[in-house]
């Protein structure tokens, strides 16, 4: 990630059913659109936001706080986009 910057942000899962398969798919798809590497941290566990399986193993239920971290040329855009998705409750509610 040459010339990349690091952007970090904290979000809270607000949709009732948590980060289950469908929202995790949306998140992974979204993260895959950026050049930056996005990781998500929770309780010391760090996963790639591009992997739906890894996202699911976070077992992030309603109210869980996630720490986003992006590194790369479009790090800020990536983090913002993901924050918007999470805050929109993944368009599910």
């Amino acid at each position, binding site marked *: 990630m040459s010339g990349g910057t690091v952007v970090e942000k904290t979000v809270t899962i607000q949709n009732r*059913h948590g980060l289950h*398969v*469908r929202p995790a*798919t949306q998140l992974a798809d979204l993260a895959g659109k950026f050049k930056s590497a996005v990781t998500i941290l929770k309780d010391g566990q760090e996963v790639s936001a591009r992997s*739906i*399986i890894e996202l*699911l193993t976070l077992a992030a239920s309603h109210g869980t706080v996630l720490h986003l971290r992006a590194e790369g040329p479009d790090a800020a855009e990536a983090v913002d986009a993901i924050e918007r998705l999470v805050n929109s409750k993944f368009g599910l509610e």
Partner: protein
Amino acid sequence: MQILKGTPVSPGIVIGEAFVLDIEEYRMPRRAVPPEQIEEEVSRFEAAAAKVGSDLQADIAHIQAFLPDENLADIFAGHLSIMKDLAPQIVHSVREYRFTPEHAVSKKVRMIVKQLTSREDPTGFTTRLVADFTDVEKRLLRTLFGQRGAAPSGANLKSVIFARDLTPSQTIRLDRSKVLGFVTELGGRTSHTAILARAQGIPAVVGIANVTRDLSGGDTVIVDGSKGLVIVEPDEETLKKYRAIERNFISFEKRTADEMRSQPSETRDGIAVALLANIEMPEEAAHAREYGAGGIGLFRTEFLMFDPRNPAGEKEHFDAYRKVITAMEGRPITLRALDIGADKMVDDSAQQEKNPFLGCRGIRYLLERMDLFRTQLRAVLRASAFGKLRLMFPMVSTLDEIKQARAIIQDVRDELDREGSAYDAELPVGIMIEVPSAAIAADLLCAEADFLSIGTNDLVQYVMAVDRMNEKISALYQPANPAVLRLLRQVLEAGQRAERPVSMCGEMSGDPLFTALLLGLGLRSFSTVPSAIPEVKKVLRSVTISEARQMAQEALAFPDAHQVVEYLTERTKRIIPELF
């Protein structure tokens, strides 16, 4: 290396590969792929993944067309995403670790599931996720196995079967020549798996929670059925230690079996003693012969009730009995009428009783279910025309029950006479002695019983008022308790006085510790799991009747079970030191 502790239910030590039978009975094949076949396996997996992908797409399309439920379609769309994410990781495992795709899929999903379930889950959130992952796993495995046909590569290897629980129908479908050992999450000493394992002389450990979840097919495991240990992926040192024990154990068992097979079954002073086998299924008759059984002392017939809603018909009963008669080539066979109820009811549709062990089971149940009882009696009687059969009833507690059962037998005989069907008019009809009332009043029951067979498992449980599955009090389950020994002596004496043959078919009769004592009390017919026959024979061939009587007298003089066991251990050690 991981050491798991369970309940030891069948002794012996084996080392082998794990074979996980999950609820859908998929078999996880051995994992090492020869280097030249790796790319072939990768393409096989990719083809399977593509197939699963198109199946999922088809399911989604189907749902959208016929069940316009967005959530439902979403679930499958989610599975598709999981699969797409999973696929490259599986390919990596196949290339990097030479896993078969089946093993790689299973291992990966087990890992994810383990990670998910390691957390608290108050909302049921992870439970649903686990279901999603296992669903994808099953689709992949089903497709992978589908390509390969019915015989996955692992099926030819001997392996240790791991399962949550083995149902009788699963057990019967296993190729027993390929089973090294059994490990299950559920079950106790009297579970079907346990009884079957002991009958086959296969080491088994039960009651290890979550073992199928935490383990993958192909893992190397050591099963120590004597101590109740299962060691997963053992280190070199442990492996070495157990290999040595395994060799000794096998060679001792085999040596004893080989040495004893052709020896007559008699005491040192030449008194003939019947050594018979307990069997669960007709196929085991051959096994009984291998161990030198002089006949079948307990042919359990509950296998005919695998599906209680659809019980076996007369023909199935008859064919099964004929099979054993043919296999035993004229040797005597004692068949036990269906012993259903309590723990033996394989279906939960059975009426829930508050206290099933004191409930409607054995002969009590048969007298209620005239349809089942008559079907079996017809088959038994018709089969009796072809060999030396005896029939006995389980759970008899009163004289009246035998009278009632006999009246029904007479009625069935009349029916067969009218049809012109042949049967043995002299078919001996006896009873199990496993209820204290029957044991205490054995002399009175002899009036209606042609023979007695002591079922020590239940008898000890009822005499001691101890449920042996209850860990807290299992130390009170004492076959060597003076109360039990006195009662056994009483039953044997009652049989002798009434000139009724008495045999024993509980676990006690297969335990070499008790062989000389039982001989001394007057027992002349032992029925046991086939694999125990050689050891029992070895003990009885090395004592005389007067020595055995002396031992019985001394053993019965002790005030408690511990001293009896200590005494018997010390005496038996002189005969078979290898056992201790």
